[in-house]
């Protein structure tokens, strides 16, 4: 239990359910109580996740705060949780953004109870995804996460919410199904080779897959995660989902859910199939660079601010993927840091877009202009978020972007150079949007009387901005926690390639599904 004396990860994972339980007994009509209950739950949850950071042991790549209890014996599945230097920050990001999202959901007025319950359920599943070290458990959380998100988009979304929700669900499911097949294959394959049934991540990792099947399994996993990231050309669900999702839904979708795609590559796809990873690296580097440039160019010409931010995510996540596939310390650390940074900056942008939407019920750029005059505080926060997203040195975005690009340049200079165009393009699309929304004279009558941020909104933005400066000026605490895990990841991929090449696909690796079913029957 990682030296804390109590199962902290279980607490962090399931604490939101306590909130759900309380919410169940609150009257539907008392919206204030519902909101405060949910908010307090997420605040406590965030505070509970802080010891993970402070008690985190430096200098080791081993999983920490590990809990392992037999769960489904007959399948060899364990309730197995643990975090390393990478998931530590993803968990913190999740609890942090969920807290802000609930605070940003004060304006939700429809089915408040169900909304808050969905949100808290979502939090549990998200934390669960990042903490699971058992593939079955992981898959369970992964799939369970879809349901509350689907509801958040489909019930509390915009006019085309149903289309967007279904598109989101089907896109993700299409990938998940292939991933499930691959997980089962790995599970069975491990059983054939090692003779025990387990979904344990480490055990499955230690059983290399035959070179003949590895590429297919790799692609199945990769497809599931590439949709989630999303990489070009699997990205078209994202703008739709974002435009229709409620503000908090977008924050979580961009801030956390997209990271599950990149996390999936990092934790499963690439370490499981190192040879295939290297074999396909040019494909994925190309897709990453296309995502970077394509996302930025399409973002530039959007008429809807939220859609613009959505497309910018495609571009930013492309940088993460570029970093991951370049496979060196700087590039991968930069990529992981960029996952956090994107959560903060894009989360902040979605929060801000939501605030103006609450006031004007439109997000079309041409409906605005001169907002800086009427809402100076709002404009200031928007500018900080904008520059964080552009990657201005001194703010968080720069560190992640620069590290991933400088690292990528070491191994793949051409791809890195192409990826660096993002620095120009992001400035172009963000500042052009900023200019049209905030500068010029106020021309639209409805904008003349807009109120600046309320205290609640001010506090939300203040909280997001602080870590932006912190990571920008003093990223060392983050980097030093991350470094051993990143090195471990690289050695998992690179170190095992040579070992696997000698592994010949003979005899028992060629397995038959029918035999598997039969043998499994015997087990029963």
């Amino acid at each position, binding site marked *: 239990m990682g030296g804390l004396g109590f199962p902290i990860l279980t607490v962090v994972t399931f604490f939101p359910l306590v909130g759900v339980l309380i919410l169940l007994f609150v009257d539907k009509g008392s919206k204030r109580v519902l909101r405060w209950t949910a908010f307090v739950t997420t605040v406590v949850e965030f505070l509970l996740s802080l010891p993970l950071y402070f008690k985190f042991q430096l200098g080791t790549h081993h999983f920490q705060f590990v809990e392992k209890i037999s769960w489904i014996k007959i399948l060899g599945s364990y309730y197995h949780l643990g975090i390393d230097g990478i998931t530590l920050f993803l968990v913190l990001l999740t609890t942090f953004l969920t807290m802000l999202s609930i605070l940003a959901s004060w304006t939700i007025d429809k089915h408040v109870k169900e909304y808050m319950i969905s949100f808290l359920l979502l939090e549990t599943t998200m934390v669960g995804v990042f903490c699971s070290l058992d593939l079955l458990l992981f898959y369970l959380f992964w799939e369970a996460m879809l349901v509350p998100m689907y509801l958040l988009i489909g019930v509390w979304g915009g006019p085309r919410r149903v289309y967007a929700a279904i*598109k989101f669900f*089907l*896109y993700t499911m299409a990938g998940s199904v292939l991933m499930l097949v691959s997980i089962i294959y790995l599970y069975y394959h491990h059983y054939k080779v090692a003779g025990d049934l387990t979904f344990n991540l480490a055990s499955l990792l230690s059983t290399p897959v035959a070179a003949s099947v590895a590429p297919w399994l790799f692609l199945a996993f990769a497809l599931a995660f590439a949709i989630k990231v999303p990489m070009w*050309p699997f*990205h*078209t*669900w994202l703008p739709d989902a974002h435009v229709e999702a409620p503000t908090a839904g977008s924050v979580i979708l961009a801030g956390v859910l997209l990271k599950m795609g990149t996390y999936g590559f990092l934790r499963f796809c690439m370490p499981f199939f190192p040879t295939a990873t290297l074999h396909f690296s040019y494909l994925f580097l190309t897709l990453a660079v296309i995502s970077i440039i*394509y996302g930025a*160019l*399409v973002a*530039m*010409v*959007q008429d809807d601010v939220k859609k613009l931010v959505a497309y910018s995510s495609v571009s930013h996540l492309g940088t993460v993927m570029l970093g991951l596939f370049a496979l060196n*310390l*700087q590039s991968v*650390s930069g990529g992981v840091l960029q996952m956090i940074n994107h959560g903060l900056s894009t989360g902040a942008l979605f929060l801000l877009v939501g605030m103006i939407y609450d006031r004007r019920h439109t997000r079309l750029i041409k409906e605005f202009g*001169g907002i*800086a*005059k009427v809402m*100076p505080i709002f404009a200031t926060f928007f500018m900080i978020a904008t*520059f964080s997203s552009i990657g*201005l*040195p*001194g703010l968080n975005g*720069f*560190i992640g972007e*620069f*590290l991933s*690009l*400088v*690292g990528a*340049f*070491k191994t793949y*200079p051409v791809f*890195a*150079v192409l990826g*660096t*165009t993002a*620095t*120009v393009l992001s*400035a*172009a699309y963000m*500042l*052009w949007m900023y*200019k049209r929304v905030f*500068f*010029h*004279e106020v021309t639209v009558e409805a904008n003349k009387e807009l109120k600046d941020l309320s205290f609640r909104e001010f506090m939300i933005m203040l909280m997001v901005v602080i870590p932006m400066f912190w990571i920008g*000026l*003093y*990223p*060392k605490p983050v*980097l*030093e926690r991350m*470094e051993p895990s990143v090195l471990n990841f690289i050695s998992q991929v690179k170190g095992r390639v040579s070992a696997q090449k000698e592994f010949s696909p003979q005899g028992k690796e*060629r*397995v*038959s*599904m*029918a035999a598997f079913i039969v043998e499994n029957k015997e087990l029963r």
Partner: protein
Amino acid sequence: MMVLILAVVLIPLLGATINGLFCWFTKRKAHIIAVPAIAIPAIVSLILLARVLQGERFDQVLYWWIPLGDFRVPIGFLLDELSAIMITTVTFVATWIHVYSIGYMDHETPRGYAKYFCYLNLFVFFMLTLCLANNFLLMFVGWEGVGLCSYLLIGYWYEKASAANAGMKAFVVNRIGDFGFMIGLFLIYKHLGTLLFSQAFASAEQLSVGVATLITLLLFTGATGKSAQIPLYVWLPDAMEGPTPVSSLIHAATMVTAGVYMVARTHALFNMAPLSMEVVASIGAATALMAATMALVNNDLKRILAYSTVSQLGYMFVGVGVGVYAAGIFHLFTHAFFKGLMFLTAGSVMHALHGELNLQKMGGLIKKMPITGWTFVVGALAIAGIPPLAGFWSKDEILAGAFMGGHRIIWAVGTFTAFLTAFYMFRLIFLTFFGEPREKHLYDHAHESPPVMTIPLIVLAVGSAVVGLLALAPHGGIVGFLNRTLGEAHEAAGHEGGLTYILMVISVAMGVAGVVLAYFMYMKRMPDPVAMARNFRPVYTLLYNKYYVDEIYFAFIVNPVVGGSRYALWKFVDVIIIDGAVNGVGRLCRLVGGGLRYIQTGFIPDYAWMILVGAVVIYWIGRLF
């Protein structure tokens, strides 16, 4: 020493923070914080300069900013002859421009006033960071930070569409340069394994000439953005939309010279790459000439000064490009005084004429505003290279360096540009301050600016007059001082006494000729400028429209990219191809499902058959594997 350096860097940041966070309280009193926040660092800079003069050097890490494996970048500072000169110049000029701003920004709203000083302090903070950084990445922080402040201050009057556009243009164009800069940094890290100046320069000789050339050309790309050289100079004339003290501080005296400073700072790399040096000098000379020609026919007071800045920056690049780094920095130093001064006088004129910038509507103003007028003349004489004013010394060093280094064509271009410079500057002076007033109404309302504005003018005018004499100080003067760190790329083959004097006489003659020609054309109408414009209509139109460069960029770069993104990528690839395919799959599923519905007959025997067939198929599939 670290404490003093931190004081220099952080006090402006403190000032910016106070005015930024508490602009609701400081309001009209913002300058009480902002001016000392620059004046104190200015005094400390002088102390630091004095210590450097005594031979002290300083290079120390404050803390490790990004420590990641072998990629280790600190927040650390380097104080040597070069950075000492830079910070002294920056803080000195900035102090007086802050003082001047008290008068100039008088009409702003209280909060706008505080915001203005906040940005101005913040700018100085980033500029000092840029100059004092001991590694490439921290320098890049300052580099981007000054760009941010420039963006914010150009767009200070953001309700004006032209100001909002100009701010954005400045930032984006700069980012194009930074794209090159960043890749240059990647290459340095890849080949030298460090971004620290001391380590990188010490091991610079390991680089092959090819890599060194690539690195330096990429760094220079960054410089062309920040320092407004061909092909990225287009943002600077538009940047004149900002308040005039900003144009003076950021877009003349300090920020735009960052590119020159950077080339000088990385001279160890440039020395490895003769080709890059050639490129730097050639681009510098071409920019100097081109910008000067655009200034010839313009009627906008501030834009003429902006083109003049571009042109003078070209000179500085000629200096560092031909290997006389110290001369380039010397010109940077003198230019900060006289160009800062000229912008402030332009601001004073605007202040008096309610924002009027058109030369054709002015005239005779020297009677109404003598201090403004005569200080401008001092600045103009300095830039025209008339001895013993500042510009003469530094320009002469550069041209002599070019000639001695064997760059005869560049020398000729530079000398001819000196003639043009003197001409357009005195055209501006005669049209603005002398002759008969052309707009009676404007003239009648004109008045001299208050002392808070004229005192900075006088100070900078005295500076413009005398700082050039530092060239005559003992131990080789300021050039010798700078050469303690910079050295010369190629040991100039001994200053041949006679030749240097001949060159000096030529360049002075060029300056005088320009002044005299301007006098005859604009005071005596011989030849009449209007008739000249008519006779050389195509040339005049081309120059008047700035060679149509902005239009060309829009037609061939901006519009195709935006249009292509909208119609080819978004509307076609995204909406029709990808979403078409996705929705197509959906439709296909529904179609197949609709078809399969017919086998759901509801008859048990049908199902039994199907189960049997299915079982056999599965069995055979199983056998196959």
